[in-house]
């Protein structure tokens, strides 16, 4: 019998150390007299000491215990559950304290998340990620856990519990602008996707059929891909404004959504064309021959054999394109294309930091959602292929 408790989970130990350090050394919230002044630090001890609020930290305490517990399904389930509840509890605590502060302060006062909140929230989410892995959950289980976290935090937003936090006050001020910005952002990405698919897919097919086309196309698209977005927007400014000056009736200009969609399309062509070609190149030659052997026409071979087999690789290219375009569309706000980037840059230029978050966080969420959706689609396409083959 030894009385020394060994460390069973060193990842959890690291996360616990991160949490404790952030709780003790970093401000949990910042409280400022108005939106442009920088805030006074509010420590976690103050926040948790108010009434029964500290109870929200119980799941955090559970996470601190995990490294010392003997691992097993129960402990790992507690690890995931603790992480989910801690992530939601920390948000609840921040919202709760903002309500308390708002009761005594002027309406212009702002309560924002501090560095301590971000570190602890990140640690809680990482614990969920690590726990889900250790628990060996499949894709469906992972999606369910992700949806639970989103529901617990999103529910607090929806219920108005977080309305006294600065980011939600910015949202209240920008309610109409915000909805329009999200739509505009999605519209920019969708508008670029149409010409990308119309040009990129045939280009990819041609490049796979003829090496000469590939040698011509891919180096050009590669160079485009390396040019930073802000520079490409700038370089398009000159020819497009010249075009606009020559044909005023076209409705084209150097700034606005049109050059943004053109630039987004130029960037999106490479992953689409490359993955279309790679997907088709991955179709085994014997499969093509078998299709020819049973008397399929080239058109039938393409639609019924090559296209379904190339679909997973193509979808991976589409995923890269979409995630990339969501980010590039944010930069396009600099040339007046609108979207969430416009809110973000407006906040940066006006030193309104919660306005920055209101623009930037939804951009990240959009990208993550697009990534997850396309990954799921790829997995479905693959499993369908597997079933047909079996």
């Amino acid at each position, binding site marked *: 019998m030894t009385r020394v408790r060994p460390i069973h989970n060193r990842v959890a130990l690291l996360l616990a150390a991160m949490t404790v350090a952030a709780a003790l050394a970093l401000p949990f919230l910042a409280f400022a007299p108005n939106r442009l002044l920088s805030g006074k630090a509010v420590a976690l001890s103050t926040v948790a000491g108010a009434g029964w609020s500290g109870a929200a930290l119980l799941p955090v305490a559970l996470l601190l215990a995990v490294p010392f517990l003997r691992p097993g399904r129960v402990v790992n389930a507690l690890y995931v559950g603790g992480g989910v509840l801690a992530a939601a509890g920390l948000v609840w605590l921040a919202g709760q304290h903002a309500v308390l502060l708002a009761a005594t302060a002027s309406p212009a006062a702002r309560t924002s998340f501090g560095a301590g909140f971000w570190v602890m929230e990140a640690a809680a989410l990482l614990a969920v990620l690590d726990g889900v*892995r250790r628990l060996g959950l499949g894709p469906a289980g992972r999606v369910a856990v992700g949806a639970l976290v989103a529901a617990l935090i999103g529910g607090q937003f929806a219920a108005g519990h977080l309305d006294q936090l600065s980011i939600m006050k910015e949202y209240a001020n920008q309610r109409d602008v915000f909805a329009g910005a999200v739509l505009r952002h999605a519209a920019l990405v969708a508008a670029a996707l149409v010409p990308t698919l119309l040009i990129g897919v045939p280009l990819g097919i041609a490049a796979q059929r003829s090496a000469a086309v590939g040698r011509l196309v891919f180096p050009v698209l590669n160079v485009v891909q390396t040019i930073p977005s802000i520079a490409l927007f700038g370089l398009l*400014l000159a020819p497009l404004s010249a075009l606009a000056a020559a044909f005023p009736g076209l409705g084209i200009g150097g700034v606005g959504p049109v050059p943004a969609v053109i630039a987004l399309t130029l960037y999106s062509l490479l992953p689409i064309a490359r993955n279309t070609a790679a997907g088709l190149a991955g179709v085994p030659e014997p499969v093509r021959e078998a299709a020819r052997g049973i008397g399929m026409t080239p058109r039938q071979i393409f639609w019924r054999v090559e296209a379904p087999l190339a679909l997973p690789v193509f979808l991976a290219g589409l995923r890269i394109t979409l995630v990339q375009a969501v980010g590039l569309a944010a930069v396009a706000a600099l040339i007046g294309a609108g979207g969430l980037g416009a809110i973000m840059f407006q906040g940066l230029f006006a030193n309104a930091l919660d306005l920055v978050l209101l623009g930037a966080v939804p951009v990240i969420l959009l990208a993550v959602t697009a990534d997850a959706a396309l990954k799921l689609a790829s997995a479905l396409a693959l499993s369908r292929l597997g079933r047909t083959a079996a």
Partner: protein
Amino acid sequence: MSRLRSLLTDRLALGLLVLAALVLGMPALKPLFAAFFPALDRPLYEADGFLALTLDHLALAGGASLIAVLLGGAAGIAVTRPFGREFRGILDAVAAMGQTFPPVAVLAVSVPVLGFGPAPALIALTLYGLLPIVENTVAGLESVPEPVREAARGMGMGPGARLWRVELPLAAPVILAGVRTAAVVNLGTAAIASTVGAKTLGLPIIVGLNGSNPAYVIQGAVIVAALAVVLDAGFDRLAARLTRWRPGAA
């Protein structure tokens, strides 16, 4: 004569030449911009020198990439050793997920947490640059065939010697690809960092866009683009050098 021809067909040398000419010779192009944009009072960005902006830009993007290589490389090595294996899964997950975050959003989110200025921008760029480097370091080290490791062990090499003399050289091309991704992203994000208070080549572009001065925008954009082309050619050269000795490599 053949020297001159090889210089003119060499993408890297040519790119460097064009870049240097643009950075140093931009003031000489003032009359050209004045002729193209007759409506502009100030057809040349003169608030800062282009050389100084370029050097600051390189310091930010290069510094962030360098720190990311050191930290990311160390993390990648650590999780492929027995003592760090437990952290492998979480690091993979973070690297894969983090790369779906758009760099511009990461840069913007860093401001409320870290503040305005070049130092917070450096931290944001470093964090983002870590992801592809960690991912590729792990992938590169994992790709070293087991028989090769065995042979090294059989020759009596210790863990350190195996890492430095066998595993890292074999993983180098894959690691370099990660460094390249990080450097290319950092070069572009550094340009946008001029909106969060870092002085970079993005500054003339932003000032020009906000002040409706297309000449400023073009001046900043051509230098950033030239820089990107030079960087790309440089990594091509480096990659060719790293794989030249391999059997079967072209």
